[in-house]
């Protein structure tokens, strides 16, 4: 599907595992999103999709690059005057990337995931000439009408992607894209199996970097990256240490600073999380036969993860979290929320009460993508972890 033969992230090629992972970390930590610029320079078009979930297969089938808009550790110098106070950082830094042309898009899509983010398409639409749309993912996935509705909404997205790319998207194109993404989902599941089963083999920040790259490079390249590095990770001979196993919850939208993840990895094993959960939303293969849009819609509703921004009667969030903790055999959870993130902050209350009932230890915290000092937080986390280790 790649319209160009350019590799947009080749820095890791031919390097040792440690050096390759260093390249991955550097690329994810950089606020410049160089792979996206390289893609554009080679003539490709880019569709920015704001957190959390987006049917990237549709954009991929049009030969465009789906770029996950998830903010960046930058100062919102240009974007600040477009927003009022009391808002999370990701809104501002995402717009900043576009206003200062760090990332140039041909189309932008957001979803009504929260009260703040649902304003984004309108804001971007007033500032850019390219299509800036809302994708209305079903907020009533329990209705019998939700799958048909979503299939139609995906078809609308297909029509829009065709207009922007200037290229027809056939069902076969979609099936090919679904196959590429199925492979990607399989590799991501493999990565999380490593985290859960042998967390000493991969550092928390390395696992995060490997996932995050999926949001900025073509999936074929990402598949190649994971397919090459994951077997090498499994071959490592690192010995397990006596560390607390933690689940991190609260990274579904705004991302914690890279250094925060690194800090958590230093003090514990991060055995599962909801970081960039949208890239891992669908939990199983999507069928490649039949109606591809219907298959995608059905997978979204029936075979998917959970987050505080989707209400599904079948997936009470606290129960899902407890399942995640149990499945990962975690000792405790970090219940984080981005500053001013209403759904995240609201969910924290339900999580804490549910974990109290289950007598599962937890640590509550807030973060901001731009925060740079962790000494206080690190001390608190260390105290929490020591308390668990020696209690």
């Amino acid at each position, binding site marked *: 599907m790649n319209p160009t033969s350019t590799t947009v992230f080749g820095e890791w090629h031919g390097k040792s595992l440690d050096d390759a992972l260093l390249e991955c970390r550097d690329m994810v930590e950089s606020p410049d999103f160089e792979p996206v610029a390289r893609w554009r320079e080679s003539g490709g078009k880019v569709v920015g999709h704001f957190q959390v979930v987006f049917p990237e297969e549709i954009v991929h089938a049009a030969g465009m690059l789906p770029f996950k808009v998830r903010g960046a550790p930058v100062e919102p110098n240009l974007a600040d005057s477009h927003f009022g106070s009391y808002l999370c950082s990701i809104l501002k830094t995402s717009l900043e990337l576009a206003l200062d042309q760090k990332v140039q898009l041909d189309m932008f899509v957001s979803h009504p995931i929260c009260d703040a983010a649902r304003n984004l398409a309108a804001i971007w639409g*007033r500032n850019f000439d390219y299509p800036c*749309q809302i994708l*209305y993912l079903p907020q009533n996935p329990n209705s019998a009408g939700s799958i048909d509705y979503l299939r139609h909404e995906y078809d609308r997205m297909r029509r829009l992607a065709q207009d922007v790319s200037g290229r027809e998207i056939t069902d076969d194109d979609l099936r090919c894209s679904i196959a590429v993404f199925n492979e990607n989902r399989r590799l991501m599941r493999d990565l999380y199996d490593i985290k859960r089963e042998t967390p000493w083999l991969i550092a928390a920040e390395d696992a995060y970097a490997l996932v995050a790259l999926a949001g900025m490079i073509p999936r074929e390249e990402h598949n190649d990256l994971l397919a090459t590095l994951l077997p090498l990770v499994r071959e490592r001979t690192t010995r397990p240490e006596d560390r607390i196993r933690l689940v991190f919850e609260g990274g579904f939208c705004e991302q914690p600073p890279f250094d925060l993840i690194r800090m958590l990895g230093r003090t514990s094993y991060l055995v599962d999380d909801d970081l960039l959960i949208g890239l891992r939303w669908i939990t199983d293969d999507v069928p490649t036969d039949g109606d591809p849009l219907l298959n995608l819609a059905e997978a979204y509703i029936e075979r998917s993860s959970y987050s505080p921004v989707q209400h599904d009667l079948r997936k009470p969030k606290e129960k899902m979290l407890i399942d995640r903790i149990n499945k990962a055999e975690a000792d405790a959870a970090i219940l984080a929320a981005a500053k001013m993130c209403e759904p995240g902050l609201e969910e924290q209350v339900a999580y804490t009460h549910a974990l109290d009932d289950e007598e599962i230890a937890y640590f509550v915290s807030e973060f901001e993508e731009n925060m740079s000092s962790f000494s206080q937080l690190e001390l608190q986390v260390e105290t929490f972890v020591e308390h668990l280790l020696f209690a």
Partner: protein
Amino acid sequence: MTTEQSGQELVGRGNREGAALFKDWFTELDQTAANGGQAAYVFVMGSLNEILKSFDLPVVFPEINSLQTAVRRVAHEYLDEAEDYGYSPDICGYVKADVAVQLRGGQHPMGQIPPPSLTVLTNACNTYIKWAEIWERMYETPTFTIDIPGTRQAGTQTWQGAADFEADRRYIEVQLTELVSLCEEVTGKKFDIDRFREVLGHANTMSRCWNRILELNSARPALFNAVTDGTIFLGVANGFRGTEAGARYFERLVEEMEYKAANGIGQTIEEKYRLLFVGVPCYPIFRRFNELFSEWDATFVNSTYLWFASGGTNRGFEYDLADPLASLAEGTLVSVRDAMDSMFHQNEILADMITDFDADGVIYHPIKSCRTVSTGLADGRRYLTEQIDIPTLFIESDMMDRRVVSEAQMKNRIDAFFEGLESRRQHSLAGT
């Protein structure tokens, strides 16, 4: 009774009768709570009263309960209690005040609020969804989300007959059918289509009248203050939607407003400036907030609040009683979508309002508590002032939390705004 006497009785009748109806409503809720009766929790943007009233379910609007705590200046007690329970200072104050009401077993300054037997919400505000989850956990009673797709991009709304519109409408109709079944299950009553038609008929009257009332306020002087009086009318529009009492109230309100328009009767001030209000009122200092403007002989002639907080019934959509459920689906889509547009894509609406209501300025009041309404206002204001030469003022505070309401700072900004308006007017008169 002389014509003059009957005119005097008409003027202000809407406010008096609105207050009385409000009292009746809370008395009914109090009795329901005392008797252990059923009640449905709903929200202003898409209450679906049309279905709930067909089952004779009393409706509770937690948004209205919460704002009442602010107007009565006790909101801080409730907010503190919810924050002690674990809720962050950075989340919606309405939610927190309600959590405290629930933790107090329904005790509210206006009476006892019954717990929900059923919750019906829309996606017009995401906090509705998170809020309903709280009751789901507290009471384990059913929650039903009516998911209403909104406008995908400014100016691209689709309408009846278009495939995209029909897909949205169909989705809503399926959900309404499911809601009817759920209501039957919860109440143990069979759905009565004739009763439903009767409710829709009352809702039609109310929508028609609401649309007319808003239109009439383009009169000079304006007939009512869109922020203060308008909030009373809104309370009735929401709480009594689909009822005979609501329909009667709005017919009488139209009568009052038409009388005032015909006789050039405005408000108590000499109207010097006509303003539009964008955002949510500052309930912790509700009267005082308005005084900061009325002291300059300014009045609010219209607001986006009267649009979105009425669930888009400002459009005046009337249901087709021959095909009631399909028509309710269509009306819900058109109206609630419009309510969302008046929050997210309000620039075209404001441009029309500025012309139609001959407005002198636009007051933006984003609030900490409501990111749905507030997030896009700074950018919207930038855009509007690039398109239209009109003075605007941007003041941030809150609808619930007095900790972020600074009256002195607000007064300074408002006074400066009016000094600018005054100067602008003088320059205009002098032709400079």
